C-alpha cells in the first residue's frame, strides 16, 4: 500500500493519498475542529461512457443513453433491504449523483462515520438488479426526465450542447430519454456495473472529523481486490466545428434566458488544469461588472446580474459558456465577440489580471472552509488526473499572456453557439 502525504505550501492544508492493494485510490483529509464527515465513493463512469470494452472483450459494447444514471438509482437497492434504511439507523444522510463523467455515492454524517463508511463501501460493491425492479424505476426516472424538461436552464444548456457537438455523447441528457430508459435491462446494468465499478476505476474521498488509520483499516476490511480489466472507453470522432450556430425555443417561463458557448479544444491532466484556469480568468474578464461593456449592457437593460460564465469540460469536451437572462441575447453575443477581439488587440491590463487572479486564489482557499467541498476537491482532482491543491499552484504561475493565448486560440466566433429559451408572449 503506497501512502503519500500531499500538502499545499500556500494554505498549510494536507491530505493523504493511498493506492490501496485492492486497486482503489483513497484520499483522506483530517480536518481539525469540524464535526462532520463527508465521503464520496466514485467511479469514472458518467452519461458519456456509452461505448466501451475491456481487455477481454473483442467487440465494443454500446448501451442506451441514461444507463449510468439508472444504475446509480438501482444500486441503492440491496438484495434484502434499501440502503437508505441502513443509513437511517446511523443518522447519516446518504445520496448519490451522476454527471457526464462520473457517478458518486455520498454520505454526510456527524457521528458513526466508521459504520457509515462500511455501509457505503459495502453496498456499492454489492449490486442487486432484477428485471422487476428495473421496470419499477422507469416510472420514477421518467418523472425526473420530465422535471428537467420543464427546467428552462436545463433545456437551454442541452440545446446549446446539441448545436455544439456532432457526435460526442455530452450532448445527451444525463438521465437519457423516456425512450432510451425503456431499453435498459437488469442484464445491461450488470454489464455496466462489472465494467465500470472496478476498484481500479474508482476513488474514495473522505474528509472531516476522521482518523486516517481508522479509515484505512475499514478499507482493508471491506474492499474486495479487483483485477484491472483494462477498461477502454471510446468516443465518436468529434470535429472542432459546430453543428449549428443557434437554437431557439419558446417556453412558458417568466424570463428569457440564453447560453452562449464557445466550443474549445478538449484536453486532459495538467494541461486541462492550466487551460481551465486561463479560461476562468478570461471568463471573469468578459463578465467583469467594472468593464465598459458590462456597464453599457446593464444600463441598456440588455443583461442583469444573472450574467455570468462557466468553464465546462471533461473527457473529449471543453466549452466556455456565458449565460443569463436577456430579451436581447444577440446583442450579448455581438458584444462578447467584440470584447474578446478588443482584449486581443489592446491586451489585458495587468491590474485587472491581478484582481481576478486574487479572486480565484481566494475562492480556492475559501473552499477549504467546508468539509463537503474538500471531499469533492480531492475526488475531482483525482478524476482530472492531478493532485489536490494543484490548482492553487497552477494559478500562481499563470500569466496574462496565457489568458490571451487561450482567448486567441479558443474563443473563436466560428465555434460560437447561441441557445435561447424565449418567454412565451401571450
Amino acid at each position: 500500500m503506497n501512502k503519500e502525504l500531499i500538502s499545499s505550501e500556500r494554505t498549510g492544508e494536507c491530505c493523504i493519498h493511498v493506492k490501496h492493494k485492492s486497486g482503489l485510490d483513497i484520499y483522506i483529509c483530517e480536518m481539525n475542529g469540524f464535526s462532520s464527515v463527508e465521503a464520496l465513493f466514485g467511479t469514472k463512469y458518467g452519461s458519456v461512457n456509452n461505448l466501451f470494452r475491456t481487455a477481454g472483450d473483442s467487440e465494443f459494447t454500446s448501451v442506451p443513453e441514461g444507463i449510468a444514471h439508472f444504475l446509480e438509482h438501482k444500486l441503492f437497492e440491496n438484495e434484502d433491504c434499501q440502503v437508505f434504511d441502513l443509513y437511517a439507523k446511523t443518522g447519516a444522510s446518504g445520496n448519490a449523483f451522476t454527471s457526464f463523467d462520473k457517478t458518486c455515492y455520498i454520505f454526510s454524517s456527524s457521528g458513526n462515520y466508521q459504520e457509515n463508511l462500511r455501509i457505503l463501501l459495502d453496498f456499492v460493491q454489492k449490486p442487486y438488479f432484477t428485471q422487476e425492479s428495473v421496470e419499477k424505476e422507469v416510472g420514477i426516472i421518467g418523472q425526473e426526465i420530465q422535471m428537467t424538461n420543464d427546467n428552462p436552464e436545463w433545456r437551454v444548456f442541452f440545446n446549446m450542447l446539441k448545436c455544439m457537438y456532432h457526435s460526442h455523447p455530452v450532448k445527451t441528457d444525463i438521465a437519457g430519454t423516456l425512450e432510451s430508459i425503456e431499453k435498459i435491462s437488469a442484464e445491461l446494468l450488470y454489464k455496466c456495473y462489472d465494467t465500470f465499478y472496478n476498484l481500479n476505476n474508482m476513488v474514495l474521498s473522505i474528509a472531516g472529523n476522521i482518523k486516517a488509520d481508522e479509515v484505512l483499516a475499514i478499507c482493508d476490511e471491506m474492499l474486495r481486490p479487483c483485477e484491472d480489466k483494462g477498461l477502454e472507453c471510446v468516443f465518436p470522432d468529434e470535429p472542432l466545428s459546430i453543428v449549428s450556430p443557434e437554437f431557439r425555443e419558446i417556453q412558458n417561463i417568466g424570463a428569457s434566458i440564453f447560453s452562449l458557448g464557445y466550443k474549445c479544444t478538449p484536453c486532459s491532466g495538467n494541461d486541462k488544469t492550466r487551460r481551465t484556469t486561463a479560461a476562468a480568468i478570461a471568463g471573469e474578464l468578459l463578465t467583469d461588472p467594472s468593464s465598459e461593456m458590462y456597464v453599457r449592457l446593464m444600463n441598456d437593460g440588455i443583461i442583469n446580474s444573472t450574467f455570468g460564465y462557466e468553464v465546462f469540460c471533461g473527457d473529449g469536451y471543453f466549452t466556455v459558456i456565458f449565460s443569463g437572462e436577456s430579451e436581447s441575447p444577440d446583442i450579448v453575443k455581438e458584444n462578447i465577440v467584440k470584447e474578446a477581439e478588443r482584449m486581443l488587440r489592446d491586451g489585458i491590463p495587468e491590474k485587472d489580471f491581478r484582481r481576478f487572479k486574487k479572486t480565484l486564489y481566494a475562492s480556492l482557499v475559501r473552499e477549504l472552509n467546508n468539509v463537503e467541498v474538500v471531499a469533492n476537491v480531492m475526488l475531482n482532482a483525482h478524476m482530472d488526473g492531478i493532485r489536490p491543491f494543484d490548482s492553487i499552484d497552477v494559478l500562481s504561475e499563470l500569466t496574462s499572456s496565457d489568458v490571451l493565448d487561450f482567448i486567441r486560440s479558443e474563443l473563436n466566433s466560428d465555434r460560437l453557439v447561441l441557445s435561447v429559451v424565449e418567454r412565451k408572449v401571450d
Partner: protein
Amino acid sequence: MKYNRTEISDGIGFSTIIDEKFKSCLLTVKFITKLDRSTAAENVLAISALTDTSSDYNTIAAMSEILTELYGAGLSSSARKRGDLQILSVNSSWLADKYALDGEDISGEMLRIFSGCLFRPNVINGEFEAESFKINKMELIDRIDAELNNKSGYALSRAQEVAFCGEPAENSCYGFRDTAEAADAASVYAAYKRILSTSQIEAFFVAPTDDPAVEKMLRDGFSAVSRKPEICTFKSPSPLKNELMDVEEEFDVLQCQMVMAFKSDSDDIYAMRMMSLILGETPVSKLFANVREKLSLCYYCSCQLSLTKNTLFVDCGIKRSNIEKTKAEINRQINEIKNGNFSDEDIRSAVLFIQNSIEQIGDTMSSYTGWYFERFCDGKIITAEEMTEAFKNVTKKRIIAAAKSFSIDSIYIMLNKEDNNS
C-alpha cells in the same frame, strides 16, 4: 468556538462567533420587519441598493472593482419570508487577512466598505442615485418575473398564497411587479430610513479571530439612527379554512406540480417536526417509500413544515393522470401516522436524522448564523444538546397527537395543458 451576544442599541443585537478553523470572515446584518404587500418591494429595493453602490463607491463598476481587488470579497443582499415577517439581510464575506498574499488589510477595508454601504448610501437630494436605482429596480422586476422559470418553486409560492390568503404570509418576500414598478428612488430611500429606524436588527460576525472593530463600526453607525423598533410577532399560526380550497392553473408544462397544505392547531413543535420527518423529510419517510418507491408515481414527494405558520406543505411532480391516485396516497400516509402505524425504528431514525443535522451546525459559517438567528426568533437561546434532547423526549403518543392536529386546508395544482405523457 466562542459565542457572545450583546445589545448595541435599542432592538439591535450583535453576535460574534469566533472559530479558528475558518479561513474567511462573514458579517451579516439582518433586518426583521413586517411583511406587507405595500412595502415588500420597496424594502427589497432599499436593501439591495445598499450593496450595489455607496457614497464611497457610487457606481456598480467602482464597487465591483474594489471587491475584486480585495480578493473577490462578497457583498450582497437577500430577502426571505419567515411566517408573516420579511427578513432582509446585508451580507459580506472576505478572505481572512492571514491568507492575503501581499499583507493587505482585507478586514479593515471591508469594514470601511460595509459601513459605507449601510450608513452612507448612494443618495442625492433625499433619493437613491438615479442610474443605480434604475438598474436595481429592473433587477427586482426581472427576479419577480423569473420566478416562473422554476416550476416547483413557483407552485410552492402559489400554494402559500392560497393557504395564507388574507394573511401577510400570502405575499412574496420580493413584493409584486406592480408595487416594484410603482416604487421610485425617493420612496425607496424613505423605506431605507424606515427599515433602519423601525426593524428589529440582528448582526452576526463569524471569523477565525475576534475583531473589536466590527462592533465599533456597527455601534458608531447605528448611534446616528433614531430608533423606534416595532414589535415583531415571530409565530403566527394560520387559521384553517372552513372548507378545502382547490386551485388549479394550466401551463405549458410537461409535468404537473401539486402542493397540498395542511394546518395544525398544536403547539407541540418538537412532535410536529418529528411527524413531518416521519412523513416526508427523509429518504426513509413514508412519502418517499410509498409514493415514490412503491407506487413509482413521482421522482420527488416530500414535505416541509412551517412552524411559524403551523402549516405543512406536501409537494410533488406527477403525471396528470396520477393526480387523484397521488392525492389519495398522500392522505393515506398521513392517516397511517394518525393511526399510529409507524414503528419505534421510524422514531429513532427521525431523531438520528435531526441529531445529525444539529451536530453539523458550526461546520459552515452560515450554519452558525442560521442557528443563532433562529434561536433569537424563538425567543430563547438553547444549546444544540438541549434541542436534541427535546426531540429525543418526543413520544409516539405525542407524534400521533401532532399528526391528528393537521387537517387539509388547500391544494394548488399546476396542470399541463395536454396530458401527452399520461
